[in-house]
């Protein structure tokens, strides 16, 4: 493994975003904005029942409208190759699996004509009684299996983990301990809601497909789209340099791109398609709701003796997605007896997907709320209670951590937050009509690398290095940080490095998800730089030949991945104000202290962590997709009704980090920083709300009605 840690020039500097000027001047080209000649427009049709069959289709009136080229439904849609992902099999049957599923598409010369004609298509249905309600006492909860979505990892949950874990005799320990907690926490359905909607601009040319698509992984999209259309991957090019946010929803699914590709093949014209905000609530995934029972047992000294975390979560009958909600509980705290389980309720609802720290986001709300309750039950300070139960190795696998500075985060975060001045009594401080409180919670998120990345470096005699990899920048700063990594790996200034991303004409890259991007792509770039150095020395005497030189390297294996548990950590501190009369909550201050390994770019990392903490606040207090059990749709499916934290909600947000490198994760010494900032925020806020009011809210979001006197 090449070691770039010895020569820090670009890494660690707060370099401005390479794409910053383009973004702020509006010249960055997003998927829908690519100029395509003679394009036509697609407007989708969606089911208005939650389960059943389409019995009749009347497209005559729509097809007669001026400007309409075709109306696709399951009756005339091209056949697709049977995909591994059932969500991609658009318009292949008369079955309706959820309300809002694609049932067709109108293609017309203008968007207005397509949209108007869409209102004229009539479907007849034979509805089946649908079932959309998650309850922990359902008798049909089932153990998830083969839900892994990334790489080749086998496993039951989407991260490749097994559904259950068991160590010791948790039940006996839970029954006999002097201090016990048994509490149930719930998190609702949440929608990802990136600013830029999901879009695809698709054109066919001599049997080859070009897709301008807003995606978190152009290589992954290429594979999926080619597979379902029955094409070799090299006949599909996906172009996606700029992505206006994804939050997980642009890894999966790409049913909209498949629909646009089918339409383009049918009308033999380029097709443009952008989902509306309302459509996004049925078609591009969400965080499934969870019901989590946590039981903790401790001895008289505040040492945990048993931990149990049992999860029931929503999934779709159409596809058995399963978040790893309780996996965080396997690694956070030491205890001899432990059990975690995941069970799914398959429902007639849209297909869930990864969203903003999937699994850990929900799980750590429950675990870290329970830890706060347990600290109180043990009569301990919540910071000290966590430190007392800090494990030396991974409590279930026994592997050492590649690095784990959670205790340092808790201690330093507490110092910065002024924690030592805190009176632990609840409902004891006031400022006028506002009740004041503070709370703490720990954070964690895995720091994996995903397989499937290669990087090419082309150097010219004038010292210009072009670095090619189909990575994705979701607005996080990837473009910039990869430039910094490449510059240090090559031993040249950043001005001599030009990184190209977001195009399957480049070497492949794993998806931007799972907080894995920089670890995976950066490792590949470092390997390519190392190979360039070797080839230059061995074949060219250290001098770049006149015609230039090009090398390509795959992401190198890292044997440490089997020897160490690799995770980021953090400690979050929240200060809240709660209106005594109305229950309104304001978060006056959030302070996060993180362990994310070596920081590549303090400016972009700070933005990611602060953005994550803001997402965590939004999850704690505002966001909530309301599913109507009678219809099976999300009622509040727009930004007027689905509340995300607004600027006025966000006050002081501080992100800091311990300056530690991880010796095992990758050549840079970095760890994942994209999602750990989200994790734990909700619990810190819930714990602070308890401290302010004396009311323990175990059901997110913490809305004012739950705190009304």
């Amino acid at each position: 493994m090449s070691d770039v840690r010895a020569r820090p020039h670009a890494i660690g500097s707060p370099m401005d975003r390479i794409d910053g000027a383009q973004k702020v001047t509006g010249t960055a080209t997003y998927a829908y904005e690519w100029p395509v000649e003679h394009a036509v427009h697609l407007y989708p049709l969606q089911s208005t029942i939650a389960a059943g069959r389409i019995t009749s289709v009347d497209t005559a009136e729509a097809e007669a409208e001026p400007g309409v080229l075709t109306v696709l439904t399951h009756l005339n849609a091209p056949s697709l190759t049977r995909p591994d992902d059932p969500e991609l099999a658009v318009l292949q049957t008369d079955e309706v699996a959820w309300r809002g599923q694609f049932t067709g598409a109108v293609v017309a010369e203008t968007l207005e004509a397509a949209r108007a004609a869409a209102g004229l298509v009539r479907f007849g249905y034979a509805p089946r009684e649908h079932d959309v309600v998650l309850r922990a006492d359902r008798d049909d909860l089932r153990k998830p299996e083969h839900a892994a979505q990334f790489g080749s990892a086998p496993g039951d949950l989407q991260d490749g983990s097994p559904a259950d874990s068991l160590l010791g005799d948790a039940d006996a320990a839970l029954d006999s301990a002097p201090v016990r907690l048994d509490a149930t926490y719930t998190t609702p359905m949440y929608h990802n809601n990136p600013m830029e909607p999901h879009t695809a601009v698709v054109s066919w040319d001599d049997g080859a497909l070009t897709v301008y698509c807003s995606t978190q992984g152009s290589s992954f999209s290429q594979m999926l789209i080619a597979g379902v259309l029955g094409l070799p991957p090299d006949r599909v090019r996906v172009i996606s340099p700029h992505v206006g946010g994804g939050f997980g929803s642009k890894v999966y699914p790409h049913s909209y791109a498949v629909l646009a590709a089918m339409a383009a093949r049918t009308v033999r014209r380029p097709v443009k398609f952008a989902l509306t905000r309302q459509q996004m609530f049925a078609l591009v995934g969400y965080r499934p709701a969870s019901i989590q029972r946590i039981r903790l047992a401790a001895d008289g000294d505040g040492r945990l003796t048993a931990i149990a975390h049992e999860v029931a979560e929503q999934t779709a009958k159409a596809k058995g997605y399963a978040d790893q909600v309780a996996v965080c509980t396997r690694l956070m705290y030491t205890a001899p007896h432990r059990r975690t389980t995941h069970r799914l309720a398959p429902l007639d609802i849209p297909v869930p997907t990864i969203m903003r720290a999937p699994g850990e986001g929900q799980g750590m709300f429950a675990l870290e709320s329970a830890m706060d309750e347990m600290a109180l039950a043990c009569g301990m300070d919540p910071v000290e209670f966590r430190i007392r139960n800090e494990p030396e190795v991974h409590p279930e696998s026994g592997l050492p951590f590649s690095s784990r500075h959670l205790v340092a985060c808790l201690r330093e975060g507490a110092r910065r937050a002024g924690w030592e001045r805190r009176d632990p009594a609840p409902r004891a401080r006031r400022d006028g009509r506002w009740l004041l409180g503070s709370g703490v919670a720990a954070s964690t998120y895995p720091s994996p690398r995903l397989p499937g990345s290669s990087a090419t470096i082309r150097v010219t005699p004038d010292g210009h290095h072009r670095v090619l990899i189909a990575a994705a920048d979701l607005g996080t700063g990837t473009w910039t940080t990869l430039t910094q990594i490449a510059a240090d790996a090559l031993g040249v200034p950043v001005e001599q490095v030009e990184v190209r991303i977001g195009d399957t004409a480049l070497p492949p890259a794993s998806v931007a998800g799972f907080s894995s991007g920089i670890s995976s792509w950066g490792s590949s770039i470092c390997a390519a730089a190392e190979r360039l150095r070797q080839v230059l020395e061995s074949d060219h005497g250290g001098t770049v030949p006149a015609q230039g030189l090009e090398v390509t390297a795959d992401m190198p294996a890292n044997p440490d991945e089997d020897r160490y548990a690799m995770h980021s950590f953090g400690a979050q501190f929240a200060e809240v104000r709660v209106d005594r009369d109305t229950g309104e909550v304001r978060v006056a201050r959030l302070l996060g202290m993180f362990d994310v390994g070596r920081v590549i770019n303090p400016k972009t990392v700070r933005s990611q962590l602060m953005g994550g903490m803001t997402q965590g606040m939004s999850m704690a207090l505002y966001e909530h997709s309301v599913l109507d059990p009678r219809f099976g749709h999300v009622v509040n499916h727009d930004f007027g009704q689905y509340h995300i934290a607004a600027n006025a909600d966000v006050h002081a947000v501080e992100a800091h980090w311990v300056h530690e490198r991880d010796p095992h994760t990758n050549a840079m010494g970095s760890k994942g920083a994209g999602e750990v900032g989200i994790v734990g925020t909700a619990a810190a806020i819930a714990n602070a709300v308890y401290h302010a009011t004396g009311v323990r809210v175990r059901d997110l979001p913490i809305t004012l009605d739950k705190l009304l006197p």
Partner: protein
Amino acid sequence: MKPFRYERADDVSSAVTALAEEPEAAFLAGGTNLVDLMRLEVATPEVLIDVRRLISDRIEELPDGGLRIGAAVPNSDLAADDRVRRRYPMLSQALLSGASGQLRNVATTGGNLLQRTRCPYFQNVTTPCNKRAPGSGCSALEGHQRDMAILGSSPACVATHPSDMAVALAALDAAVTVRGTDGERRIPVTALHRLPGDTPERDTVLARGELITGVELPPPAHLIPSRYRKVRDRASFAFALVSVAAALDVADGTVREVRIALGGVAHKPWRATTAESALHGAPATGESFRDAAAAELARATPLPGNAFKVPLARNTMVSVLLELLEEGR
């Protein structure tokens, strides 16, 4: 979205005539709500008659010391007007608590009054709604009830009126001037909007073709201190769960004059006349305020999903009145 024609009339009377003659026409001013509803196919006018340039966008002094606000005055201009901020602070506060800066720049005074409910079932053509499709049923009655009414609702409709500005205008005894084919008339804001009854499709008492041309504010008299407080699910850009517009005048520990209007609780801005009557001449104390709020809410008919609005409305009324009492000392 259905295709439509766009027309501009030469003056108010021809606009009113044109609309009265076109069965599927609608007036267009700021369009911040109407155009959204057209995209959703909740509103499907065949003709839009743009009246924005026909009606006044000025704020003028009235001889009695009041103000006349042209119906085309943008919400942001009205909120920023120095006379409004000094004499009717609750109106400025109400406007600034609504929508966003961008929307307030475009939305007009008349349009704000006539905006439709944001009931999610009204706005979704795939679900039944008596207001949108009379006789189809009310989906909210047994559906998502958080934003629904607790006062004056009917089995046919439990929607709320979304305006903040209208709540302040109701408390201020403002009146709208309306032009129809039969000439001009004046309607108190408290009488402009209807309760749903059996005909929730009608939001207001306006006849077809009638156009709001302005809003008249009576002189502010001694109604200071006053304020508008909006309680909602986030700090900005959300509709009120409950809002309170109130003014309180106390002399020698006794309530001399009080105005209270509530938003977010009914199909119309809700003037709390029961609470006002209970408070007139009563001692200005927290106990009086609580009793008056309770009296007003005694008629509340909450649903399971919005029962919290009853204590919320009570607490917010009491809290605002106590603050006004403190301010007046």
